């Protein structure tokens, strides 16, 4: 996958270099329903209880280790005939994102039984977005998808006791609370989960099977020992064993294994039942002694493995030396499974296995003891871990290789593995997991490795820790410094594992400095560093040039160096395209479009989007991320050109494609665009609500925020006549007419001028606008220029300086005519209409002015704003619509309302549309006041 190699973390943080979602890698072995053994003890009393509980929400199987919980669950699920998903949990699933990803994967095994489905696509999209949604919204989306599954099914969460963090647990609690009726949940656990069990019990929604239910009854014990395990014990023997083990199944199984092939079972039973020793201690010893020496060794050595397969076991036993063993690892595993020695298959091919956890723990204990007792004969536990690490490394499982290397305290090895793994892991957004490994290493060891230092620095930058990142960058630079060795004790020789990364290290360091400078708002040095990175990199190193060029482009954009920025970004995007990374290539579109708009080149901006659309279409379905943004961008431009139908059409395409096909900060930009629509329609309160929503969704990226929400709100306040609020904003932002001007704050200064105009301080406003105009002209920002000239013309008009106003306006019209601007003039309302009449009289741009004057009428006349209506409703509201209406009257946001009603956002929109049309209103606020008037609320 090409994009996996694009090493910079930039893509994670910028909307521009969009991060293409990398699914959390899913281990199929965690989703494998453990097979039912051919010979087993039928347990009709338990199966019947579980069958009866099928209509309840939850079956809880809660008992200590070794009580046959998973076995029972898999037997029942298999016998029930219902489709079922299985998820074996481990400690890693305490990360709610991973937990939910696996939950989706397990549910997907249910929905995909009859062919692939798109189940979970929306949830996974939410999970992989750079700013994950709150867990509850994700679970809500998941619930909606579950509710659409056409058949009844079971989901088993095995080993739930490993979940001990609140986020994962509360995700499950929420799921359970709202569980759709077609789903039945089974939990196996060693301790009661922190779920509202008491409430479920009272509501009769819970079936519980506990240790007392699970332990073998005397007759089950007899069946097990004599039939399943092939012994022939008397009733008294069985009873003695049953009492000694208290029906504990693992204990009985070990006891049976100890007796298999033993002539004097009676004496075994006597000494076992007469002993006070912990059942497991006693029996594991017995069982091991029953096995040949080679099997004992095999069991002990391989007990360090979480998952076993034949070749891996061979490697751990022989360390890769030619196998002198009589049996291959694969054969031994088959024997161990056959012998009932607590080996659980993890797939149908009998490739991967694991030991029963309890058994593995006891084996490991003995392994440590044996290694400690006879250090000379035994290969030391650390060596076994290193062998396992080597095997995993050779077989491409770096995470396992590192885990074993850490267990062996082999830090050099961890450092080497980490250095080699960085590019791929960074490309897959596993920077945080990677960092956990390196944090375990002694700092000195890292410092000796410049490649590792730089990777570590990037990992910190990805995590938003600029200071820590800078420290490691400086360490790397010190290490790279070829001048005579420093006097410090820093005399470890430099270690480089990955020569390829080393060669481009100076460029990588420069890119990192550019990134840090950008994040700190130090744009000039960001430009310097990014430029230096590009100078250092060969022309054809597309992988590394892309991010550096992206940063440079962003910096140039931020300082208003628009033509250079456009060229740099276009070049970076072409680079991504040429290495086959279309999604990355698409990601620059929005920036390029915005730059063209700022330059007042609307038609070229449309061209940018058209080309991007072609690129996206080439990828086909599903539409790649960035496609929605293309339509959003077009909608904004058409709106500017007064092409309202086309704008609406593009907006609908954009919303239909939705977040799945969008860049990271799309939700924010969508609200902003919607707010503009509201402003044009005269619904100013609606616009403010959307802007507030946008503010909540905003997160800083290196993409310059040229029209901050605060300034947009101040603009709306001015339109509402809320001058004091707008003024307070300007004070809070510390804006003054004497400020040094910059492109980044251009819009805020324009709004400041507008505030001054509203205060009738046209003199200072004119002075400020003239300075802004000069700056825009210098930067050839014609879009800005038109905007500033419009304001300036109005300021002159307010001072009754009509000739000056017309002179300023004439140039704006010249610039705007070929690009088809409409809204920027028409949106100003009456003062501009009057000024255009003067322009018409003075024969300024007669055709264009005529068109603009014609455009004025429409929105004024047909604006259907808050038409009061006392008529009873022609079409009554449905119950559901009344539910929605009630919540519209609250403080809840749209997504929150959808959540409380357990419906999707789309469904909510449909309801809202119906309500508005039945109430003849077009905003939430109007709907509420109308409903109050009609006594509906």
């Amino acid at each position: 996958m090409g994009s996996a190699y694009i090493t910079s973390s930039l893509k994670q943080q910028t909307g521009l270099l969009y991060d293409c979602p990398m699914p959390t890698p899913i281990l199929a072995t965690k989703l494998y329903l453990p097979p039912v053994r051919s010979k087993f003890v039928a347990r009709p009393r338990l199966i019947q209880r579980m069958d009866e509980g099928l209509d309840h929400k939850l079956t809880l199987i809660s008992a200590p280790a070794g009580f046959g919980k998973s076995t029972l669950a898999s037997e029942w699920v298999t016998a029930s005939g219902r489709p079922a998903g299985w998820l074996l949990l481990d400690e890693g699933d305490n990360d709610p994102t991973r937990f939910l990803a696996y939950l989706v994967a397990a549910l997907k095994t249910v929905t995909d039984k009859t062919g692939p489905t798109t189940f979970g696509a929306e949830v996974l999209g939410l999970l992989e977005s750079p700013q994950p949604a709150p867990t509850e919204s994700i679970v809500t989306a998941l619930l909606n998808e579950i509710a659409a599954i056409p058949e009844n099914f079971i989901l088993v969460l095995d080993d739930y006791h490993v979940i001990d963090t609140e986020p994962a647990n509360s995700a499950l609690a929420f799921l359970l609370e709202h569980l759709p009726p077609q789903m039945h949940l089974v939990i196996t656990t060693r301790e009661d989960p922190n779920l509202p069990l008491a409430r479920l019990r009272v509501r009769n929604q819970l079936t519980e099977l506990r240790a007392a239910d699970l332990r073998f009854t005397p007759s089950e014990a007899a069946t097990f020992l004599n039939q399943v395990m092939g012994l022939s014990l008397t009733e008294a023997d069985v009873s003695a064993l049953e009492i000694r083990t208290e029906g504990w199944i693992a204990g009985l199984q070990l006891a049976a294994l100890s007796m298999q092939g033993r002539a004097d079972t009676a004496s075994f039973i006597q000494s076992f039942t007469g002993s006070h020793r912990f059942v497991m201690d006693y029996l594991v010893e017995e069982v091991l002694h029953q096995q040949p020496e080679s099997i004992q060794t095999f069991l002990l050595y391989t007990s360090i493995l979480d998952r076993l397969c034949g070749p891996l076991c061979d490697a751990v036993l022989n360390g890769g030396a030619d196998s002198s063993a009589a049996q291959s690892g694969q054969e031994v595993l088959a024997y161990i499974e056959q012998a009932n020695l607590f080996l659980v298959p993890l797939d149908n091919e009998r490739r991967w296995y694991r030991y029963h956890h309890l058994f593995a723990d006891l084996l490991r204990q003995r392994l440590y003891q044996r290694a400690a007792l006879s250090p000379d004969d035994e290969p030391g536990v650390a060596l076994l871990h290193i062998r396992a690490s080597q095997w995993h490394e050779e077989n491409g499982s770096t995470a396992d290789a590192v885990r074993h290397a850490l267990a062996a305290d082999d830090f050099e090895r961890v450092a080497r593995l980490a250095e080699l793994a960085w590019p791929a892991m960074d490309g897959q957004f596993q920077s945080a997991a990677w960092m956990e490994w390196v944090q375990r290493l002694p700092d000195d060891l890292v410092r000796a490795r410049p490649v590792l230092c730089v990777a570590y620095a990037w990992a910190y930058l990805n995590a938003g820790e600029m200071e820590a990142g800078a420290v490691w960058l400086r360490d790397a630079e010190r290490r790279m410094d070829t001048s005579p060795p420093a006097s410090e004790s820093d005399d470890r020789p430099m270690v480089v594992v990955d020569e390829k990364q080393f060669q481009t290290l100076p460029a990588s360091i420069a890119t990192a400095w550019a990134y840090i400078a950008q994040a700190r708002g130090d744009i000039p040095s960001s430009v310097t560093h990014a430029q230096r990175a590009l100078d250092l990199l060969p022309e054809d190193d597309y992988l590394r040039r892309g991010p550096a060029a992206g940063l440079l482009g962003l910096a140039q954009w931020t300082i208003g160096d628009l033509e250079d920025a456009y060229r740099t970004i276009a070049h970076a995007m072409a680079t991504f395209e040429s290495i086959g990374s279309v999604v990355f290539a698409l990601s620059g579109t929005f920036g390029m479009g915005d730059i063209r708009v700022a330059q007042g080149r609307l038609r070229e901006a449309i061209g940018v989007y058209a080309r991007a659309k072609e690129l996206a279409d080439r990828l086909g379905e599903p539409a790649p991320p960035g496609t929605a943004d293309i339509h959003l961008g077009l909608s904004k431009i058409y709106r500017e050109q007064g092409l309202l139908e086309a704008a609406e059409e593009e907006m609908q395409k954009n919303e239909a494609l939705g977040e799945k096909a969008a860049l990271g900060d799309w939700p924010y930009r969508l609200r902003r665009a919607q707010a503009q629509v509201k402003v044009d329609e005269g619904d100013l309160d609606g616009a403010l609500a959307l802007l507030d929503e946008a503010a909540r969704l905003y997160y800083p990226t290196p993409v310059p925020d040229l029209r901050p929400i605060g300034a947009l709100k101040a603009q709306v306040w001015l339109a509402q006549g809320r001058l004091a609020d707008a003024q307070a904003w300007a004070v809070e932002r510390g804006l003054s007419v004497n400020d040094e001007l910059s492109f980044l704050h251009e819009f805020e200064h324009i709004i400041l001028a507008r505030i001054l105009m509203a205060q009738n301080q046209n003199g200072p406003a004119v002075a400020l606008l003239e300075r802004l105009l000069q700056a825009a002209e210098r930067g050839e920002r014609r879009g800005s220029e038109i905007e500033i000239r419009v304001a300036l013309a109005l300021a002159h008009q307010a001072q009754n300086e009509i000739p000056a106003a017309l002179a300023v306006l004439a140039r704006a019209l010249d610039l705007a005519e070929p690009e088809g601007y409409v809204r920027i003039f028409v949106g100003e309302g009456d003062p501009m209409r009057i000024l255009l009449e003067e322009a018409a009289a003075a024969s300024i741009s007669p055709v264009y002015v005529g068109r603009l004057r014609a455009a004025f009428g429409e929105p004024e006349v047909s604006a259907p704003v808050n038409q009061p209506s006392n008529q009873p409703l022609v079409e009554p509201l449905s119950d559901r619509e009344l539910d929605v209406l009630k919540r519209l009257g609250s403080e809840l946001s749209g997504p929150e309302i959808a959540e409380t009603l357990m419906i999707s956002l789309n469904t909510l929109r449909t309801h809202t549309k119906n309500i508005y049309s039945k109430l003849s209103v077009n905003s939430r606020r109007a709907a509420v006041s109308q409903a109050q008037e009609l006594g509906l609320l």
Partner: protein
Amino acid sequence: MDRQQPLSTNKDSGTATNLDVDRSQQYEIRIRGHLDERWSDWFGGMAITLDDDGDTLLTGPVVDQAALYGLLRKVRDAGMSLYSVNPVEPDK
């Protein structure tokens, strides 16, 4: 987690159960069945004493509540029957 905070003081028995970071509390954990000496490592070096009733006493310093819960989890994961947990005076 408020590790620094004293949990409670059992005034009746006079047993201090304050858990300071720098001062471990001695605990005694009673488990059903006699454990082999090798479990000492598993339980982080707790001393193992077997009593005549067939129980095992794990005794040793426990640095804080988190460590105590960790020990109890080990008891759980080994499938052992937990009988009691008590703070004790050192050198009892």
